[in-house]
């Protein structure tokens, strides 16, 4: 029998149980088609649960086409499609060259027709403004390809990110992110925006890095 105050025999086992408290989902036995995923390979990261618990160093995949988060549970190595309601957000330890990428759960309207739904958005926190990127994927076309002389058909998906900028509790949506839409959203900063784009190396706003750079610059002026 352990001495009073010492860690009891079953402490370790219980800690293991507590570790996976409040994770809920369904067993996924379908095909994990890599093209539809924001991260085609499993990436190690952290899972922040609705209860406030955090599960660290777990393998995650996020499907941009279906907006679903998959978790490879470590005991039986099964793939679990997590309930969005039980996950507040997640964090990739390394994603597209970035060592710290966080996704948060938000309620957004995907299109004009449907109701708002819970989606996972990448969150970049500047000082005064926050950028949210919805890494959605769309089916583009079918394409023939050949493997060992056999011709097969595959689906081609493209990523069409939607950007959301939050400033002073106001959320602006950018389905197309360019100088024109940015000036329209923040007309009082239009001179600054135009000047920045004019002086930038590429003279446009297309890549993630370019978008992040201009928002970093604008953050000082907000």
């Amino acid at each position: 029998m352990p001495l009073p105050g010492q860690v009891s025999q079953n402490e370790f086992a219980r800690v293991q149980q507590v570790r996976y408290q409040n994770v809920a989902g369904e067993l996924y036995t379908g095909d994990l088609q890599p093209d539809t995923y924001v991260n085609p390979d499993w990436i190690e990261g952290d899972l922040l649960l609705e209860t406030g618990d955090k599960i660290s160093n777990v393998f995650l995949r996020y499907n941009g086409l279906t907006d679903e988060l998959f978790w490879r549970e470590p005991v039986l190595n099964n793939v679990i499609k997590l309930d969005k309601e039980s996950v507040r957000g997640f964090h990739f330890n390394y994603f597209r060259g970035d060592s710290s990428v966080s996704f948060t759960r938000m309620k957004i309207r995907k299109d004009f027709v449907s109701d708002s739904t819970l989606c996972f958005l990448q969150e970049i926190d500047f000082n005064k403004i926050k950028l949210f990127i919805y890494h959605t994927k769309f089916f583009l076309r079918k394409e023939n390809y050949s493997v060992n002389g056999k011709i097969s058909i595959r689906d081609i998906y493209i990523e069409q990110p939607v950007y959301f900028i939050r400033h002073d509790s106001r959320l602006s949506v950018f389905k197309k992110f360019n100088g024109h839409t940015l000036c329209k959203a923040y007309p009082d900063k239009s001179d600054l925006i135009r000047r920045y784009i004019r002086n930038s190396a590429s003279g446009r706003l297309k890549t993630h890095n370019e978008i992040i750079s201009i928002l970093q610059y604008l953050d000082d002026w907000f």
Partner: protein
Amino acid sequence: MTNLAVLMMLLIIPGSSWPGNPSAGLIKTETAYLHTDRNFYITGDNLYYKLYLKSDCPDSSRFAYFIIRDEKSEIISHSRLEVIDGVSYGSIKLADTLKTGFYQIVCFTNFMRNRPGTIFRKEIIIANRFDDDVSYFLEKDRQSSGVNISSKVSKPGSLNLKILTDKSIYERREEIAFTVEPGELPVNEISSLSISVSQVIDYSLPVLSITDSFSNDTEGQSQTNSNGPGITYEMESGASVIEGTVSEIPGTAKTGISFSSLPESHTIFLSAVDTVPNLQYTTTDSSGKFCIYLNPWYEGKEIYLKLRSKANVQINLDSKYAIQEPFQLTRDFNTHYVREFIKRAVKTGQVARYYGSEAKPDTIETFYSNHLPPAVYSKTYAVIYPSDYIELNDFLELSREIIPGLRIRKNNGSYSASFPSLQYEIVSDEEPLIFLDGVPVDNVDQIIELGSKDIGYIETVPNVRYFNGLYFNGILNVASKKDAIKNISFSQPFRQTQTDESISFTKPKHFNPADLPSHYPDLRYVLFWEPEFKPHGSKMDFTVWSSDIQGDYVINVQGITRSGLPVAGSATIIVKAK
């Protein structure tokens, strides 16, 4: 080789700093001290308290337990206290039906139960205002309680607070001014003080102060663990704990040694009646013990604990309020004083009640849980409302006619359910998890008699569900119209119990003579009670008003510094007529 020999010697020598050595500082302790507004109460009064908790652990207990028990060790009141920054305060209403006599306040944390010697105990006297018969105390006088005062009541420790009054004798309804001086300590160093000015029955004996209590740890530490079932009581630093054991039903134990009699691990489900199917679970260890850190949503609810699978065992729950040590006076009272006091107090109590002048406690902070239930699923799956269809007599008919994907078969007189669409089953030969009113039931047999008129709605989750490490072959949730779960008799071992909820932080309004009509008598025994005084500035000055009751009053100040050191001080004043 020499180095190896030295290392071996170090490991063998008793008292060396090996990890399990108590002297190495790994054994953690908690000590509690309870300051009450007075030591004597009349039934119907509010007992005001302030709890101080000293802990050696980085995360001290979040909850403490407060019991009042009578001389037969029967619990007459129990509550759970929320401890914030090492303190808690509030009030307990004393029932009008209590008999006149000695009572004991017992205060502890779950972790302190590992060393019963550290549990705080204090005697109070409660007098029933309709009962002025003091023969009870005459009887007590004849019985020698045998308490060795010098051994049980510690001598007053260094009272490191000075209390200065403007005079020592006051008239009735006169302003009493006093100052608390922290001595060598800077005022800002004191983090929290509790101050009482109340009449004393028996002032000839010293009252245990926080400085005595917190320096007497060695007595408690030397006591051995006397837990009955061998449970190590866990520290409730974050959440409340439910502990217990799963054991074989007496008389059914197998004899002899066989592989089948090896300890079996059981999975225990915990849930509460709700519209949301909710679940928490744990597994027993090799000795049958289990421990659940309760989701705060379950606090204050009636919970069901049941085994996942059928077994010939029983669930034994640990009761935090079960104190093994019987009631024993820790100090002697001067019964002559007590008798005289009770005679007078009973009369004044009756008059005071007639005028209704007792201050009601003000609620400062409440601790209602706003947590979400641990839902087994949160997605919206198929919902079927039987009232939308023609009335069906039982669940078998419901499953055939209106529940898509669910199949119920009868075999050897019992029914079993399944989702045939499941292509992959992690737990084979197991039914879907069936919830009735948010609580998992044993099997579909238990709900087979429920028809359309009994059921509000049915939800089906026809896929293999993962929940915190468990897999279920689908989920069926039935919400009844009239709490059908209460009529279910479980075949698998189960227990029903009520969970604790923390009581609010309360304190009385300070007395203002202007609030009392001039023709009303002022029959306060407690002139002042401030449980949560945080010093500001360099001085701690207080002003209180004496009542119409003459006698000796004590100003009792207890507190704690920012570094956790106890501080205390007391002074006696007299109130008498001109």
